[in-house]
């Protein structure tokens, strides 16, 4: 920290304040034992170490100075260390351990040999194995809720020049950027009173959150988390995901209807209209990808993007000229619309409908809607990574990058896409309802058809 430069006009404040002058002895306190009043020491302003100026120079009169460099707080140091340790540890385990899929194969072999030694049927093995896979996928969805809500709060805060959650965690300094904020919020939501309005249809009201969240957990079954790492390898994986994820609309409409509230009803109907409309461009934008890959199986789609053009550019579908980019953008836009997030959040438009279809929900039921929203964000991110960003393939055709296991690449690409989701949300304002419908029916849908046509031309003349 440098001393304030007297020539610098940005830091005149400490110099201007006159200290209690010794020439006026009358200023001394009356009580004799307290000889001298504590001398006023102006606080040292936080200066930029590069140019010695005040960091916050956008304020003219107030605030003038900031106490204490926040990086000197132990929480930030510990937290930065933790972050480095987490990412470093992840990278090291990834490189040392390699594929998680081989672990799963070993565990499955051990399970079947155990069943054979005990004389149990193959059905038992399959049952236990499916249960384990279901639990893993379920926990991916739940932990994603914790992580992505925290991440969204931090990103939104930093986009708006705030800091977001800072103190949740531990009073002893293990509070890196409020890492425990979502967990504590979750505990709070679990303990909150669960209110059902008197006007509500009680059964439908209670059933709606379940009907929203169950399909999106089911939709995770064929999602690829790395090469050969899906809970179920379906040949119609793409179709299955779109079909199952579409069921959530019914839950939204039910929530809107059963609340007995006009705002909820409007929100539910808007949600239904929006999701049904955006299903179409979302489905059609993937069709070129399916045409190039020749399959609906996510694993085959991912494998079709292996390899590099000229040994440099990865053969991902997003790098297919024109078609790939249009398909990617349309799929991204309609994925954002599917999750009811901000540019498309007319179902829960806060300034028009109080909070849309979940106005009348509280406590855990309300948080289940949020869990479903973030699960859909994760689903969209993984689908984007699988369809357009080459699944578990490395973007750089060089040794240290190609050695990193596929699930880490997959996770990294999905997190990048999730960041795009959050970024879009905190940048764009909300559509109007008619603009929203115009956008999908008059713009996205025709262009996705055009895209399919161009893809057909590519298949006819380029990839013979």
């Amino acid at each position, binding site marked *: 920290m440098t001393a304030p430069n007297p020539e610098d006009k940005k830091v005149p*404040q400490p110099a*201007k*304040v*006159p*200290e*209690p002058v010794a020439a*006026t002895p*009358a*200023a*001394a*306190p*009356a*009580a004799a034992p*307290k000889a001298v*009043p*504590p001398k*006023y020491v*102006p*606080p040292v302003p936080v200066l930029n170490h590069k140019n010695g100026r005040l*960091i*916050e120079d*956008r304020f003219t*009169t*107030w*605030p*003038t*100075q*900031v*106490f*204490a460099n*926040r990086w000197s*707080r132990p929480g930030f140091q510990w937290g930065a260390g933790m972050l480095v340790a987490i990412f470093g540890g992840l990278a090291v385990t990834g490189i040392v351990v390699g594929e998680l899929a081989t672990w799963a194969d070993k565990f499955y072999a051990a399970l079947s040999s155990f069943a054979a030694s005990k004389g149990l049927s193959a059905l038992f093995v399959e049952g236990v194995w499916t249960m384990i896979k279901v639990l893993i996928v379920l926990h991916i969805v739940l932990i994603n809720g914790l992580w992505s809500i925290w991440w969204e709060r931090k*990103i939104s*805060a*930093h*986009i*708006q*020049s*705030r*800091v977001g959650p*800072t103190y949740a965690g531990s009073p002893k300094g293990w509070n890196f950027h409020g890492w425990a904020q979502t967990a504590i919020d979750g505990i709070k939501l679990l303990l909150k009173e669960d209110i059902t309005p008197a006007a509500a249809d009680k059964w439908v009201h209670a059933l709606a959150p379940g009907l929203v969240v169950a399909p999106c957990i089911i939709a995770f079954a064929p999602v690829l988390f790395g090469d050969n790492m899906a809970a179920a390898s379906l040949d119609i994986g793409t179709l299955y995901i779109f079909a199952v994820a579409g069921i959530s609309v019914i839950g939204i409409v039910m929530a809107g209807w059963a609340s007995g509230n006009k705002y909820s009803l409007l929100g539910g109907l808007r949600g239904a209209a929006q999701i049904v409309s955006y299903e179409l461009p979302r489905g059609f934008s993937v069709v070129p990808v399916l045409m190039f890959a020749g399959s609906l199986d996510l694993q085959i789609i991912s494998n079709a993007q292996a390899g590099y053009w000229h040994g440099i550019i990865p053969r991902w579908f997003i790098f297919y000229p024109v078609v790939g980019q249009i398909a990617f953008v349309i799929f991204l836009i309609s994925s954002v619309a599917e999750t009811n997030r901000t540019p498309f959040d007319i179902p829960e438009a806060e300034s028009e409908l109080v909070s849309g279809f979940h106005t009348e929900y509280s406590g855990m039921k309300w948080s289940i809607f949020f869990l479903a929203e973030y699960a859909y964000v994760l689903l969209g991110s993984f689908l984007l990574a699988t369809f357009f960003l080459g699944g578990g393939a490395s973007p750089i055709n060089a040794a240290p990058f190609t050695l990193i296991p596929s699930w880490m690449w997959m996770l990294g690409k999905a997190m990048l896409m999730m960041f795009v989701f959050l*970024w*879009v949300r*905190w*940048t*764009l304002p909300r559509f109007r309802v008619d603009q929203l419908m115009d956008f999908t029916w008059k713009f996205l849908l025709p262009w996705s058809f055009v895209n399919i046509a161009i893809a057909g031309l590519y298949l006819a003349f380029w990839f013979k």
Partner: protein
Amino acid sequence: MIRYFSNIANNTKALIQGHWITLKYMFKPAVTIHYPDEKLVPFEMFRGALLFDQQVCISCNLCVKACPSNCIALENAKNETGKKIAKVDWYSIDFGKCNFCRLCEEACPTKPKSVWHSLDYEVIFVKRDEMVRCWKKDFPFIGKYFDRKAQDFKDPEGQVSIHDVQPRRS
């Protein structure tokens, strides 16, 4: 046709610009001040809590007359013969009434001012009695308050930093 495509191009450009701005702001430092850990120093003419210095005060009653909300009260000290002297016997400020207007400080004829606004903005009271701060002869410099229940002068509990003597500006 040309309009349609130029429209698409312009809108795409606008979207990319907006996203670029938010991305830039994400990596800028936040403007948040973590209040209990980091505190702002108010600007020089800030009118914080009133402070009083009974050594300087000449008990001229000008601040009492200047006060629009009638929150200051004082009484002259008397010498052994019962004659009023230019010293204050007791002086009280009712922070419940004070509207922080600086008229008392401007009216004060002494140099340095015997009543003045500090830069202290953490003015907190836990009891209603605490809002009336009294200075009496031979009391410590800081303001005590008169607890009506205990019928005694006490040190305030809610006040955070009025105990620190702030700098004077005149």
